[in-house]
Structure formats: structure tokens, C-alpha cells
């Protein structure tokens, strides 16, 4: 013992070395084991995204992933995000929906649309006990489900109010939307119209639908320039297309307004956009699923996320 006491510092190093080695080996093995360990049963969630874009649905997907990661490894929720081969292709999305039903997943998260087949399949899912959550766009008259996303009527109103402020209540307006059967777009249009109809000097020259296709957007954009001073895009594809095609302010229209084209607003291609809180949409979906697993209830049937009016002037403040 005297010998050990005498050479205490040396044995300290030896002990430290051994501990370090043991710790390293343990960490390596535990790390390997941790890969294997997943608590079972696990709630399987399938998120069917309509489109893999850079500025909207990928932000919602990021929100979902971030919130899932934030719940930690102990959380028994597995989220699988899947996409149709073609953007916004309802037939492919319906087929994906059927696959999830066949796989008997626990939750299905989709962007709602009013396509009949899609609705029927979604109804099947609901009847088989699969929980349905609509994100970004709701489905009208669908049984017990959750909606997480923007209050689209309010978003349309915001767009209208900003238009009035920009034009002083006098303008001819061209509107480009996505597709008619999307309830969210119809609500935005309704909100927008409700505001501008109080201003007699604001005239809506027409509403066109781009089918979520950039080439169609540009064709309609140029077509409507002859009779409209202001271009309003009621969904993201319009603004996104503009920001891809133009580097700065456009000359064909006095004002161009849109949705969710952040970079376009920053570069003044668009004079203002309605920015939806996409990240919060994704996060809120996961939070609600977790709560539903625990309590059997969502916090509400309809959860609206924030909207902001984004321009080049307030870009840094809003994006912060």
C-alpha cells in the first residue's frame, strides 16, 4: 500500500487512462446499441406533401422534422414524409393515400383538396380509424379531423387591405390563383374580394388559375398586363415564378403582390407578400399529434398559424 501511496500520481495517470479507455469502449458500444433500441409500439405518421419546393412545403417539412427531433429519441412517433412524382398531382397523392391506408398508419397528414376521389379515399382512411390532419388547406365538410394552417380568409383580407394602402383605393387588379378545387385559395379570394368591394375604384379584371405551373403563371401574367395595373398572386407558385424569372422590380404592373415568395419581396420583384408561418405549421402538426396520443384530443379542431405582411422594407424584422 505504501508503494501505491508513494506513486500516487503515477497510478492516477494509469487509472485515468483505464477509465478513459473503458469510457470510450462503453460509449462506442452504447452508441451501437442506441441505434438498435427503439421503443415499440410506435405511432406511425405519414405526411403526404404535394410539392417539394424550396420556399413553402419544404419549410413545413423542416418544421415537422425539427419538432420531431425536439421531442427526442424517447418519443414514440415515427414520421414518414412522402411526395407524389408530379407536383400537386391529385391522382398520385390519392394513390399514396391508399398505400398509407393499406399500411394501416396511425395518422395521415395531407394538404386538403376538394377532389372527389381524394375525398373518398380520405374518408376510407377516417372510417378505418386513421386520424386525418389537414395542413395548409382544409377540406370542407369532412368528419372529425384537425386543420393546421393559415386562416386563408384573413390572409386574403390582409392582401386586400395592403392593396388598398398601396394604391390609395384606386386600381385595376388581375388575380392569378392555383386551382379552383382548393378551398384555401377560394377563401383567400373571398377575403380579398370582401375588402376591395368596399372600394369602388378598385376593379378586379379577372381571376385566372395557373394549375401550379410556372409557365402557365408567366403566360397569364403577361396576358393580364394589358388590362390590369396590379397583379395579385393568391398562392405561392405565382410569386415563386416571379422571383425566379426577375431580378428586380417589374415594369408591366404598377404593383405585384403575392404569397410566400420571400426572396422576391426582398429583391422588390414583388411589392409585398403575405408570409405564412410555415415552420410553425409543421411544428404544430407534431405537437398536436403528440397531444392526441397522450390525451385522445387535439387542442382545437382548427388551429390557425400567424401571417405577416412582408416587404423589402420590413424584411429583416419579419424574417427574424
Amino acid at each position, binding site marked *: 500500500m*505504501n*508503494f501505491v501511496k*508513494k*506513486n500516487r500520481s*503515477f497510478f492516477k*495517470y*494509469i487509472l485515468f*487512462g*483505464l477509465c478513459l*479507455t473503458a469510457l*470510450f*469502449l462503453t460509449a*462506442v*458500444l452504447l452508441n*451501437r446499441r442506441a*441505434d*438498435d*433500441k*427503439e421503443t*415499440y409500439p*410506435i405511432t*406511425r405518421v405519414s405526411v403526404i406533401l404535394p410539392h417539394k419546393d424550396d420556399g413553402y412545403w419544404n419549410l413545413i417539412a423542416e418544421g415537422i422534422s425539427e419538432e420531431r427531433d425536439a421531442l427526442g429519441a424517447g418519443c414514440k412517433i*415515427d414520421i*414518414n414524409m412522402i411526395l407524389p412524382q408530379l407536383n400537386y398531382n391529385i391522382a398520385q397523392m390519392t394513390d399514396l393515400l*391508399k*398505400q*398509407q*391506408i*393499406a*399500411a*394501416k*398508419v396511425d395518422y395521415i397528414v395531407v394538404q386538403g383538396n376538394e377532389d372527389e376521389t381524394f375525398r373518398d379515399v380520405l374518408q376510407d382512411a377516417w372510417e378505418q380509424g386513421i386520424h386525418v390532419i389537414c395542413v395548409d388547406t382544409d377540406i370542407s365538410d369532412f368528419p372529425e379531423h384537425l386543420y393546421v394552417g393559415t386562416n386563408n380568409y384573413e390572409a386574403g383580407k390582409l392582401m386586400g387591405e395592403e392593396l388598398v394602402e398601396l394604391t390609395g383605393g384606386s386600381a385595376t387588379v388581375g388575380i392569378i390563383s392555383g386551382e379552383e378545387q382548393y378551398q384555401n385559395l377560394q377563401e383567400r379570394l373571398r377575403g380579398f374580394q370582401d375588402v376591395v368591394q368596399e372600394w369602388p375604384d378598385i376593379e378586379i379584371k379577372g381571376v385566372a388559375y395557373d394549375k401550379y405551373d410556372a409557365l402557365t403563371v408567366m403566360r397569364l401574367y403577361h396576358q393580364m398586363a394589358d388590362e390590369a395595373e396590379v397583379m395579385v398572386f393568391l398562392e405561392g407558385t405565382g410569386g415563386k415564378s416571379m422571383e425566379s424569372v426577375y431580378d428586380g422590380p417589374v415594369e408591366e404592373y404598377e404593383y405585384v403582390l403575392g404569397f410566400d415568395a420571400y426572396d422576391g419581396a426582398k429583391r422588390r420583384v414583388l411589392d409585398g407578400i403575405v408570409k405564412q408561418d410555415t415552420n410553425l405549421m409543421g411544428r404544430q402538426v407534431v405537437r398536436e399529434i403528440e397531444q392526441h396520443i397522450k390525451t385522445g384530443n387535439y387542442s382545437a379542431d382548427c388551429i390557425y398559424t400567424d401571417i405577416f405582411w412582408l416587404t423589402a422594407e420590413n424584411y429583416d424584422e419579419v424574417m427574424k
Partner: protein
Amino acid sequence: MKKFGSVVKKYVVGYLVVGLFAVLFLAASVFINRYSSNRYRAAIAELVSISQLETAVKESNDGMNLAYLWLADTGLEAYEEKRPVVVQLLAVTDQQVEAHFVREMADTNRMIETYLEKCDILGKELEQYFKDDKSGDYEKLGKLYNEQQEIYTYVVSGFQRVYSFRLNQLNKMERQLNSLQNTITAVEIIALVMAVILCFFYLMRIVREMSSSIRVMMTGITAIERDVFQAEPIQISSNDEFEEFANAFNGMTQIIQMQMKKIEENANVKERLAEMEIENLKIFSDLQKNHLDFLQSRINPHFLFNTLNMISSLARIENAEQSARLMEITASFLRYNLDNISKTVTLKQEMENLKEYVAIQEYRYGGRYRYDFQVDETCMMFQMPCMVLQPLVENAIQHGLAMKLNGGCVWIRAYVMSSRIFLEVRDNGVGMTAEQIDEVYRDFYENNRSSTHIGLRNIYQRLQLFYKGDVQFELNNMNPGLEITITFPWEG
């Protein structure tokens, strides 16, 4: 008793540590290899069972196709035969999913369940169709078959996703295991090198410690060679034979130092004894000489004493009273000297003898000098050496008052003060200068035999011997005259 380690033990510990590291890493290496190969084998086994399940599902679907497309009974039989196999293999893959969750596998397994449900429904409808002599609701059968085949398509694509996932997983696992093995190998090499380096430094430390111990011991030995008393104990804290040796060496040094000190002390004592012996011999020699001088001087007093007694008797016969009286006093004076010279006497005896001397001097000088005695009665019985006062009075008469024709006086005082007896003899004669007094003192201490103050020095030395040095002898010039004061200790 402190237990010491040993140099051998230290070396052994160093090598043991390296050995321990080697064994540890060897064991870790074996363990990790086994773990890696087990994992790989398990993954392959899972893949095989998935493949078996896929084959079973495909064969069951072949049966359903045969039954529906060719309206063959054997198709349903083939399905019924394969169904339990599918269920059994499904249970196996379900266990795999439970063991470690794979979403693709879980989804595919549930799709197979859905597929079996659809197959069962279709199978029942076909069975009924066969029972009803091959007649029934063709539209319904067609719808069921399409649904069943749609699900089968999903199952097939599910298997593709599972294979894709599993192969990716295997690929990832292989890369992980390779990376793990590379890391482990690197760590093992680094750790072993570190262990060897550590061991090297440890052994170097032991060697340096030994070298340092030897140097310390050499320094200690050199210090002892130089001066055994100045040598500091050697300090070694190596906890081995060297420390043990150093302790023994320090013990031996202490013993040597103690013995040397004793020898030195004995030598000092012997030296002091020799000096004392020499001193004693000197004193003895002086005493012998004094005794000889005294014996020589005794011849005359005895002769004179007898003669004086005879003359005194004749003087009385011839009526010469004064002469007879003088003879008697002289004889008494001489008898005192003769009888008491080597004895102690009382102050009273000494005073009586002094008075006889004074009486003789009165006859001689016929009242030329006056004598004043002031003696404290309390100290009359004080014991002292004989013939102390008379030589002092004689000295005062012969040297102090000799030139004085009248008015000469000698004061003799004896008193006690502060536990000491004071004897004073004072005259009012010529006195002594300071130089003369210093010369007297020098004679006292230097024992100069050729001095002119032999009488005073003799008194001083006798008193010093008698009172063992506790005597004060002072000469004071009183201008006129000289005062000699002697003090002794008074014990009541």
C-alpha cells in the same frame, strides 16, 4: 516499523501495467470483433427472412391469380397452403420490427395484413363462385380482384423500399463497423504507445530515483568524512531499499556522533581534573612552605618564652615589678602565638592578644600612641584564624605612625552589618598613595614572593583559604592615615 517496497517491485509494476493494457485491448478487440460479426450476421438473417416473406407473398398471389384469372380450384388451394407460411414469416418480421423499429418494414407488414384480408375476401367470393357452379357477381369479383392486386402492388413496392432500406442499412452498418474497427485499432495503438511511453517514463523515474538516492548517500558519506558532527542526516524518500539503507546509515551516524561527543566530554573532564590537581599541588606546596616557615619561626618564640619566664621570676625576686609585668605580658603574647597559630580563635581571644601587644608597645613607646578599641559585643564569639589583627596594628605602628612623635592613634573596630563582620584597623599616620595600594593588591593576586608586603599578603591568603574566597580586604587612604577593612560572612 515502516515497511519498505523494493526496486524490483517497482519494475514489476511498470511491466504489469503495460501487460494489463495489452490484455485489456486484446480483450476489447476480440469483444468488438465478435460484436461486429454478430450484428452483421443478424442483419443478413433479417434480410433473408424478408426475402422468404416476399417469396411466400408472391406464391400466395400466384395462387390467387390462378384462381381468379384461370378459375382454377388449385389456385385457392395454393393460396391456402401459402397463407400460413406468410403469417408465420410475418410474425418473424414483426418481431424484427419490435426489436428495432424500421418504418418501411412496419408499413409493409401492415400492407401484407391488408393484402391477406383482401385475399381472404376474394378467396371466399371465389369459393362461393366455384360452389355455385361458377356463376356469381362478376363485377364484384373483378372489383375485389383489382383491390387485392392494388394492395399487392403496394406490398411489392413496400418490399422494394424495405430492401432498399435494408441494403442501405447494411451498407451503412458495414461502413460503421469498418469505421469502428479502424477507430478501435487506432485507439488501441495510441493507448498501447501511450502505455509504453508511460511505462518508459515510469521506469526512467525509478532509475533517476535510484541514481539520486546514490548521490544523496555519497554526499552524506563525504560530509561524515569531512566532519562527523556537521554531517546532516541523509534524506531519501524512495520507499525502497535505498530509504531503508539511508535510515540505517543515519542511525549509525547518530551513534558515532554520540560516542565522539562522549569521548570529547571525557577528555575535557580529565583536563579539568588535571588542572585542579596542579592547583591543589600548588596550594599544598604553599602550605608546606608556610608550615616550614612557621616551624623555623617557632624555635625562637619557644626559646624566648622560656627565657622570658625565667627573667620574669628573677625580676620579681629583685622587685622589678614593671619588668616582671612586661615579661609576663610578652610571655602571654608569645604563648598565644605559639599555641593558636594553626587553630581558629574567637574574636575575643584575638582582641585580648591584640591588647597584650598594644601593652607591650605602650611599654616600648611610652604613650606616644593612642589605641582606640570599638568592638561590638555580639561578635565576640566569632571564629576566625589567629594572628589577623595584630600584624595589621603592628603594620600601622611601624609604617604609618613610626615618624609621628605624638598624636598617633590606631583605631580598632569590629561590628556586624548586613550579615557580615567588619574588622577595621585605621591609623592617622602617613598612609599610602593610590599607586602603593594598587601595588599591594597586585601582590595579593600575583603572589609575588619578593614583595615588601609579605605580612599583608600572608593574612589575605590565609583568610581566602579559611573563608573559601568569601573575604573582602580593602585598603583606603584616609589622608591622613590608612584604613584596612576586612569583612567576613556572619552566620549569627
